């Protein structure tokens, strides 16, 4: 069995975002980057499937992006993936989901993977499209937003999350693609020995330009900070002062202390 996991590197969402000079994306300097949260669940699910099958499957983890995406790839290897593929693209943030998925499809077509995992969405762009477009391009059945996964005899049964906490149960034969939702599993922390082992694993570097270029279908014309509606009061200062102010406000505005 061959498994593919697609991961994206995204900034820490607690960062202070600034608009770049071109005005079409956030300024990428001075940001701390990490693996997209949803993709950690994807990596973990791939590793759990490999473990279930006695270590037989080979897991490839792929990421498109600049130099720095080597870091999340190493992390995925330390979590238990076997080989990494870095599709180098310094300008990946300018590609739309269709172009990113087309690149991934061009790469994945050669690998004939049995199972592909992606995150349900990326935390920065949040389009929830790349995994699904990839599946359509490869002609694979796909299921989004999985919160449960079990494999038996070439069949996968997943739980899809619906609104209000309800779920649906869906069965799909392999090959297939799944997009992973928060809470699907508990992603492991790489142990020190596994981090050391991961250093010896291969990360194949390929260039974005090695694949046929597809034209984008949507472009970001502008990135901006949403206007503050300015409804709220902001309390700064030390906690003694803040807590006193808050209690005074609650007394006036709510019935809590009555």
């Amino acid at each position: 069995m061959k498994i593919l996991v697609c991961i994206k590197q995204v900034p820490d969402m607690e960062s202070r975002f600034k608009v770049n000079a071109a005005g079409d994306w956030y300024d990428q300097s001075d940001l701390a980057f990490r693996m997209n949260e949803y993709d950690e669940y994807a990596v973990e699910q791939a590793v759990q499937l490999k473990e279930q099958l006695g270590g037989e499957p080979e897991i490839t983890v792929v990421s498109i992006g600049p130099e720095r995406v080597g870091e999340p790839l190493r992390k995925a290897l330390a979590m238990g993936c076997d080989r990494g593929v870095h599709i180098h693209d310094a300008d990946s943030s300018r590609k739309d989901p269709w172009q990113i998925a087309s690149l991934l499809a061009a790469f994945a077509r050669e690998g004939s993977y049995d199972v592909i995992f992606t995150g349900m969405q990326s935390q920065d762009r949040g389009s929830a499209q790349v995994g699904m477009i990839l599946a359509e391009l490869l002609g694979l059945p796909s299921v989004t937003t999985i919160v449960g996964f079990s494999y038996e005899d070439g069949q996968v049964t997943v739980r899809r999350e619906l609104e209000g906490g309800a779920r649906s149960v869906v069965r799909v034969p392999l090959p297939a693609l799944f997009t992973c939702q928060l809470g699907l599993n508990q992603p492991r922390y790489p142990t020190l020995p596994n981090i050391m082992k991961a250093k010896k694993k291969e990360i194949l570097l390929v260039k974005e330009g090695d694949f046929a270029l597809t034209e984008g279908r949507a472009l970001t014309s502008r990135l901006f900070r949403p206007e503050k509606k300015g409804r709220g009061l902001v309390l700064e200062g030390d906690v003694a002062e803040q807590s006193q102010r808050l209690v005074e406000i609650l007394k006036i505005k709510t019935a809590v202390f009555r």
Partner: protein
Amino acid sequence: MKFLLVAESRDGKLCDVSHELLAFAAEAGAEYAYFQVGSEESLPCCDATLYLADRERYGEYSPDLHKELILAAVEWEQPDAVVFMHSSYGWDLAPRVAVALQAAQVSEVVAINDGEYEVGCCNGKMRRSVKPTTPRVVLTLQSGAFNQKEVSGGTPQIVPLEIEKAGGQIDFIGYEEAEKKSVDLTRADIVVSAGRGVGKKENVPLIADLARALGGELGGSRPVVDAGWLDHSHQVGTTGQVVSPKLYMACGISGAIQHVAGMKRSEFVVAINKDRDAPIGEIADVLVVADVMQFVPALIARIGQQA
């Protein structure tokens, strides 16, 4: 401009999204037709064409078939945009339809502006204006972004849709209802919720102490529940409970749209967050910029002095 609005049904009932789709069409000044896999018993109120496919025959989750049905409706109607809600139904189906139509997809639209679509990004901290370059587009709408209180009445003109039923590969087995809630947050007057910003499981009792001191219930954001720090019955949000207390306190919660959807009807919102730019600040009446672990004990002490 002409839209094809995709309604949803679950368990045979039309989901309550048609007013949002209608509000969006109204805002865009577009004509529209509806598409629904459902039944004549539960139809959207509108004076428009409704392409209706039978849910008995095509199932409620059968994305390959639903895609083909939508494509058939598109063939008839030739819309400029196919519009879904950004929901478990919509985000699953929209990319399939977009690829088939070779159309750009714009996800989670919150506003429309001069032919461009505004969407949130970076956990709601930033916004993007997206310009499709294809003649036809597929859109998903952020739930709650377009609202119309009054749904204008009317009876749709039904056009029954049928397609050749090629065997899809995805087998729908059934629904599992949400677990019975052991904690009913929906009736609480005060809800104090813990978010990932509380740091670790051992810190959650402090937030519970605050809830107790205020005479309220303890809630939580999803990561806190996923990590097992709190039981699912405490989760607030689209996939948890929707609450509307007199006072909601969000402790270390960033304010992601799926959380906000579960608490934005609260009468008074206090957020405690060390990040002054956290999106929760947008809907909070008071944003306390502080470390929860320092502020909450101080607040509990202050509350104690009120007695």
